[in-house]
């Protein structure tokens, strides 16, 4: 086989990074949003209140759009292995292949098929079956995460195989799937998805309210987003810490890069900020808290942490990991503060002041940034290996001429830039448009018929709204003409 061209290698790496970075944005939302939709649907079954259905209808559209972009960018991923990384399948295909296969078989078809029922079947299906479809889509998205993270974790901490003639052969599937870093990484990713979806829901709902939406639906969604974020973020910090300890045990060079530790030492300070310099093998402009890194990582303020100099030539590039880690943790802290303040406010006052709504609006896609930063830490942290200790990235690359990779990379970059713009633009467009929709047009007929049974729920929900909204709501029961009038003000 020809020698791998340097430019081909670099371009292939950029292309893979671009493809997978773009792709992960969308599953990160849909994995958790599917469960939110299921929750909303169940609440609708319990209370029969139409507001849940309105929330569902708005968010299921966003779900469908997000899912579609995820599906098409995912198809690209299944081709990447062959097009750019033939060495990967040659060497570890016996292990990677079946894990990917199980993802397609157990998750992809289920998600895609029941999504059809979920989106278009509401009039054709009995309500319980429609809710079941929503549940199956949610199970499907999570199963998909299960298999792909099993493979990714195996690449980080491989076990359960033997090498025969330079090719990995499986010996124990249980050990392969449940490899040492898998449980932590899976939990960390599922929680990241939960947080990303929470802030998306809260952010878009805050935006609707800021745009003058007086209806109940965005307020219900805002509460869901804020409360779930407030619950998930402390769990995420705890799981993230466990994940870090697990990494310290299995990939100490990655942790050394995250913490910017060059020399092995005791009582390592936590660097809040620094500029790592790989040439000089030192840091500039350090802002540090003494002994804190040792305390966090070893639970002993004088604990020893191995430095990067122990792994010369075998450790990843330091700067992207060092900065990526700080971006992720920084956003995590922002999430903690903002979701707790917002939740506190919602519990005490049932509504949010404008500055809080604006903050949430700004944080709509904060989950994306934190998730990407976290993935860069863990994936760049695996370099120079593709599969830790088994296969280097350079050995896996294709022999295609660099010009071809250049063409494909350019095409992908243009298409993805346009799509990302269109996606974000469309989400906010949908939010603005929903402001103008009259509540009466989505009012469920059966709601009026069964009103005695749901009277309690009506009162609890009304309590959760500011006074002006309550007035607007009560006019819903009035004649249609006055409804149009009262909404006329909102539209303009």
């Amino acid at each position, binding site marked *: 086989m020809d020698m791998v061209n340097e430019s081909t290698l670099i371009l292939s790496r950029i292309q893979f990074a671009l493809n997978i970075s773009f792709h992960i944005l969308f599953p990160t939302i849909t994995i958790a949003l599917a469960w939110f939709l299921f929750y909303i649907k169940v609440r609708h079954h319990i209370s029969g209140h139409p507001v849940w259905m309105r929330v569902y209808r708005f968010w299921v559209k966003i779900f469908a759009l997000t899912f579609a972009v995820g599906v098409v960018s995912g198809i690209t991923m299944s081709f990447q292995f062959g097009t750019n990384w033939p060495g990967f399948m040659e060497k570890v295909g016996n292990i990677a*292949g079946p894990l990917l296969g*199980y993802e397609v078989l157990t998750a992809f078809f289920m998600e*895609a098929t029941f999504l059809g029922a979920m989106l278009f079947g509401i009039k054709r299906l009995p309500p319980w079956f429609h809710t079941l479809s929503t549940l199956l889509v949610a199970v499907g998205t999570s199963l998909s995460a299960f298999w792909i993270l099993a493979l990714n974790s195996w690449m980080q901490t491989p076990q359960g195989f033997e090498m025969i003639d330079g090719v990995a052969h499986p010996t124990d599937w249980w050990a392969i799937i449940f490899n040492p870093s898998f449980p932590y990484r899976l939990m960390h990713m599922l929680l990241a998805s939960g947080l990303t979806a929470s802030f998306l829901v809260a952010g878009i709902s805050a935006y609707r309210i800021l745009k003058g939406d007086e209806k109940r639906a965005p307020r219900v969604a805002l509460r869901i987003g804020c409360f779930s974020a407030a619950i998930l973020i402390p769990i995420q910090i705890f799981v993230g810490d466990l994940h870090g300890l697990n990494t310290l045990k299995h990939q100490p060079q990655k942790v050394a890069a995250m913490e910017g530790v060059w020399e092995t030492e005791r009582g390592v300070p936590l660097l809040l900020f620094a500029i790592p310099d790989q040439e000089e093998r030192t840091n500039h402009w350090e802002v540090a808290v003494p002994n804190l890194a040792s305390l966090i990582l070893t639970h002993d303020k004088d604990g020893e942490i191995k430095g990067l100099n122990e792994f010369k030539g075998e450790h990843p590039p330091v700067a992207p990991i060092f900065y990526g880690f700080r971006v992720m943790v920084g956003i995590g802290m922002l999430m903690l503060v903002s979701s707790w303040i917002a939740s506190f406010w919602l519990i005490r006052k049932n509504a949010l002041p404008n500055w809080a709504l604006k903050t949430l609006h700004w944080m709509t896609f904060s989950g994306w940034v934190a998730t990407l930063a976290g993935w860069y830490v863990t994936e760049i942290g695996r370099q120079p290996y593709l599969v830790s200790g088994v296969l280097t990235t350079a050995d896996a690359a294709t022999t295609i001429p660099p010009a071809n990779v250049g063409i494909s990379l350019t095409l992908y970059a243009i298409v993805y830039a346009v799509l990302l713009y269109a996606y974000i633009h469309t989400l906010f467009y949908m939010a603005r448009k929903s402001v103008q929709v009259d509540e009466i047009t989505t009012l469920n007929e059966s709601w009026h018929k069964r009103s005695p049974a749901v009277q309690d729920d009506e009162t609890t929900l009304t309590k959760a709204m500011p006074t002006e909204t309550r007035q607007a709501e009560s006019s819903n029961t009035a004649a249609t003409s006055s409804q149009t009038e009262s909404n006329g003000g909102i539209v303009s």
Partner: protein
Amino acid sequence: MMADLLPTIFLLLMGVAVLMYAILDGFDLGIGIILPQNNLQHRNQMIASIGPFWDANETWLVLAVGILLIAFPAAHNIVLRELYLPAVIMLIGLILRGVAFDFRAKAVTRYQSTWDKVFQAGSLTAALSQGFMLGLYVTGFQYSVLTIVFSLLTAIGAAAAYVYIGGAWLVLKTEGELQRYGAKKARQSGWLMALSFIAICIVNPLLNPQVAERWFTLPGALVVFLIPLMCGLIWLIVDQYLRYVPLQEDRACWVPFVGAAFIFTLCLTGFAYSYYPDVIPGQLSADEAASATASLQFVFYGVVIVLPVILAYTLLSYRIFKGKTTELNYY
């Protein structure tokens, strides 16, 4: 014993996945190609007719490529290296049509007609590049004038076949003017498809002596010549049916779609017969390209359990949405 059969089983499974893809995504790609840019109402109805299905349809491609990747990694590497650029172009086409579909439906903006054009262009690009790749694949990835011409022929053939089954889908799922439009398009493309298939059948044995030998030696030849015969017969029935659409009370509106699906199945059978047991014609057999037995076994158990379930709920989904398509409304 079973270990020896595994590569053949996976070759068969890959064939099934490709067939399912050609039939199912075939009709929605076809619909995309014949989207009338001057009739919004028809466009809405056509999009509504494929709405619940296209996501799952496209998944069959992931499964087909997935099986190639899992069971025959050596072949996967060669195929995708040789077809690098056409594959990228196909992927861009699929990306564009998939997202255009959702953008146009979820937010009705002034860009809607632009998204519809993107949907059409993406569908056509994907169909043509799939056919083009098929041509290069069977001629062993030789980029010469002859093979390029042949590949252009297969590209047109594939696009025509998708329009054929897409038009047939409209006959099945719609009524009135749109149904007649579908019938017209199916009939036109049926002729184009038939002509390019005949051309392919003439050129293919000329390019591949190995295929010629298979086709023209007894006893296999008898079976092989049954295939074009049956294809021709079904094609004729469908062609005549399409001429008179709609029949009284829309009787047997399933005929064109089922006919098209049978033609696709027969063609793929003929194709499989020509090249079996090679996973890359003339270069690599299934046995040579197969991955480790332990890996194939592990996936095989999954397939045995899961594939029937997938087929069951796919059927269920088509049952849920059976009958004529109603107007485009979500949820």
